[in-house]
């Protein structure tokens, strides 16, 4: 299978590999996919006090397209608000990396990973607010 140069670059030199503290309040973690299907993505975002995503990290078990898709989205979400990050579409990822048709599901998974990370962050943030409300 012939892959695009952009995809190969993300596979060879993946950006933002690593992990953030999943218990930190300003970190949202998304873990999507399934080992049995051959794809698991873990994507984490760290949201600054200004509401912008200041850091993003990923770890991926999967084919080259899955690794490249997750690497790419960590680059894209940085500096965005979570609302902006939420608008990233799998089609944009697939187009940017020129994913072959059988690999489109990798970009879908990357979109799911962002959404899951944002959902996790929001859940933490709302929990943090709850005790305050209760005290009032």
């Amino acid at each position, binding site marked *: 299978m012939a892959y695009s140069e952009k995809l190969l670059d993300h596979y060879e030199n993946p950006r933002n590999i690593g992990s953030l503290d999943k218990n930190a309040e300003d970190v949202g973690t998304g*873990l999507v*996919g399934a080992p*049995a299907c051959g*794809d698991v993505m*873990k994507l984490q975002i760290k949201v600054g006090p200004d509401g912008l995503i200041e850091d993003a990290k990923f*770890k991926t*078990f999967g*084919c080259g397209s*899955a*690794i490249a898709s997750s690497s790419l989205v960590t680059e894209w979400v940085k500096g965005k608000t979570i609302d902006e990050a939420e608008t990233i579409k799998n089609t944009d990822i697939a187009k940017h990396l020129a994913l072959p048709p059988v690999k489109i599901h990798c970009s879908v998974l990357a979109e799911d990973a962002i959404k899951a990370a944002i959902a996790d962050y929001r859940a933490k943030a709302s929990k943090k607010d709850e005790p305050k409300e209760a005290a009032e």
Partner: protein
Amino acid sequence: MTAITQIRRNDQPIYLDYQATTPMDPRVLEAMMPYFTYKFGNPGSRSHSYGWEAEEGVEKARGQVAKLIGADEKEVIFTSGATESNNLAIKGVAEFYKDRRNHIVTTVTEHKCVLDTCRHLEQQGFDVTYLPVKKDGLVDLDELRAAVTDKTVLVSIMAVNNEIGVIQPLAEIGKICREKGAFFHTDAAQAAGKIPLDVEAMNIDLMSISGHKIYGPKGIGALYVRRKPRVRLVAMIVGGGQERGFRSGTLPTPLCVGLGEAAEICMKEMDGEAVRLTRLRDRMLKGLNAKLAEIYVNGDLERRIPGNLNISFAHVEGESLMMGIKNLSVSSGSACTSASLEPSYVLRALGVEEEMAHTSLRIGLGRFTTEHEVDTAVEELVHHVTKLREMSPLWEMSQEGIDIKSIEWAAH
């Protein structure tokens, strides 16, 4: 004859996929050459020396193939390859004996061309039993014995599996078939020339052989068809009645000669080559085990051809690994390399978990594999497995002691 040490150009990757195909031995090519040019006659031409010369080449080759498997040369017919041989053996026998017996026994780990042929026959009204295999990839002889009935016309079980290289107990299977009066066909595409085969001692009635798996040309194969007691077949390709009527069509003389030469070289060099390849395989496995934790060999390691390794590198997906090891040509049991997006059915049949099947590589060593190539391969595999594990969330979890099976994964 000159010893060949390397056949690839230096700018080509290291070839470690000898179960997919093999390069042709230069000695084979040399034997074939005259039959492309001045010895071009039709071996069926009886009226002039061109025909006689070609016929002589074909008949010598038939003898060379027969000798490799302990058969008589009259029992060997040439085909286009193992796929055709398997089709002809299974369909041919089933069709001929269908009024008396209509049941076929095979295993779930056969090559697709055997499984698809059996499916085809099921649609025609035949009964087929697909036997499971044990964890080591071998058929359970008691289950086989129980499956073969007085309605069973044919048992088709491969000699050596193409993915995991395990060797089925052929002599024991042959004995059971003979006792029960069923014919025994074996797909020996991966076995011929690699391990000793004897159609008499093993009670084999039909055997498929491929040219390009034994350093011969592509587009040629053979089918052994026993004469005593006689096995009868309905031909699939009819016409001029060549090959005892089993397979019409003008024989491709150069290819036949190439298959014969390849068979003879394999026979002469088999023992020494088995020792050399076993040493190389052990060296590779030792090298990998020294640097990598959690790697697992799929299939029995002892009852296996010397040139095959099938390894699961836990927590590293196979296709991504192959993208990394660009200088190595191997194949993977991962879904991502197949059109179907399903992981290897052979590994699944052994009970290998789907997630582990996704991490498997098939590494095939052969006649032109060198120690230096093996060492380079180990180095590259260690480097890339380590790198990919560092970015694998599953590896991270397993290092943290989290049981991956305890997580509720959403299938997608």
